[in-house]
């Protein structure tokens, strides 16, 4: 008879139970410990935190790693240096720089069919079942939407208008995430998926859209594809 891997597997359960029984026996005679108030308070807090809406709790984690979008005013008369022809030949540039921890994207109007957009008239043609917009803050060049369902699931959609005098710089922590670059409505997008949720960044003309939350990849893409922006006039 030899000690084989199979024997170890076969005998491990009995060995574990024997060890656990012995451990139990050691403490059986102990009086029940009365935990301190500090311990009880801390544990109540821990349990309460565990009971918090999973979507929100996970989302906090996502947001800590989430994208930072900055619209930076360009120095100089960027637009005036561009020819009308150039404006019409190119679209928003999607410039990607990747480090071991982050993916940085720069949206810059080099050109464009630059359009004014009225963010107040934005419509969401698709939201996952049960979700509805619960909060929104809409400005001239940015809009923020909070979308929730009754189970505590939360999605955030941000829109940023890149003008001829601004550049959109976006940095996403992509360490330990699965990053891909799908095409959405004909434009290159960035999709970063981690176990706790995803971030999708895409663009329509000169508007950057960031979707962040616990949602399936398919739903996120479908939301993005069905955002209807009201572009008013082309320059």
């Amino acid at each position: 008879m030899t000690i084989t891997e199979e024997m170890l597997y076969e005998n491990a359960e009995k060995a574990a139970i024997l060890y656990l029984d012995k451990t139990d026996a050691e403490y059986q005679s102990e009086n029940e410990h009365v935990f301190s108030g500090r311990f009880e308070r801390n544990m109540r807090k821990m349990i309460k935190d565990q009971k918090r809406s999973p979507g929100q709790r996970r989302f906090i984690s996502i947001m800590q790693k989430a994208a930072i979008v900055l619209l930076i005013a360009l120095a100089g008369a960027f637009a005036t240096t561009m020819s009308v022809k150039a404006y019409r030949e190119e679209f928003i540039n999607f410039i990607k720089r990747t480090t071991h921890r982050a993916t940085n994207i720069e949206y810059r109007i080099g050109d464009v069919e630059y359009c004014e957009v009225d963010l107040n008239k934005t419509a969401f043609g698709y939201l996952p079942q049960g979700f509805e917009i619960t909060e929104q803050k809409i400005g001239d060049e940015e809009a923020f939407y909070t979308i929730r369902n009754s189970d505590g699931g939360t999605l955030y959609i941000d829109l940023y208008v890149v003008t001829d005098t601004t550049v959109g710089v976006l940095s996403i922590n992509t360490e330990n995430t699965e990053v891909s670059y799908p095409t959405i409505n004909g434009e290159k997008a960035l999709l970063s998926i981690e176990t706790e949720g995803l971030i999708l960044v895409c663009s329509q003309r000169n508007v950057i859209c960031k979707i962040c939350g616990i949602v399936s990849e398919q739903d996120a893409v479908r939301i993005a594809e069905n955002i209807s922006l009201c572009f008013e006039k082309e320059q």
Partner: protein
Amino acid sequence: MILYMSLIESEQDRSKFETIYMDYRGLMFYIARDILGNDSDAEDAVQEAFLKIIKNIDRIDLSECHKTKLYIVIIVRRTAIDIYRRKRKSDNNVPFDENYIDEGCEDVSAGEQIENTLDKLDLVNAMAGLPDRYRDVILLKYYNAFSDAEIAKTLETTESNVRKLLERAKKRLVREYEKGGTVQ
């Protein structure tokens, strides 16, 4: 659907955490107090262990009560030992016999010894009676069916360290088996 499933999983996890807390906090406390010697440090160890359990809650299947208990016992014992070490660091004390990787090498590889003919003793007793550091890796691997990476994460060490521990645990197991291992 994925969102829905994600919420269900979390609901289960939340319930799991409360169940573990109610069922095991007493045992966890006594194990920690045995190592640390006082109630206050033991409570800190239990709390710290629960934080580790939260992070690994998906590894716990409450329907496998012995596996769950073993995992929790190992987590709290290791946590208490870590606290003990931190507290004794300034005294240069090496508590227990946890210097496992620096233990003297043995000449014959575990692989060779494991193939030796051994038929007279009780393997269950030998496994249960291994020193903590060896029993932890053996049972996590062969009972909880953890991968080396999962064991490394549980014991907060490296996979290479886990492989060394397994190798040495097997050597020790052969020795104990030959002697007629008993639960210490």
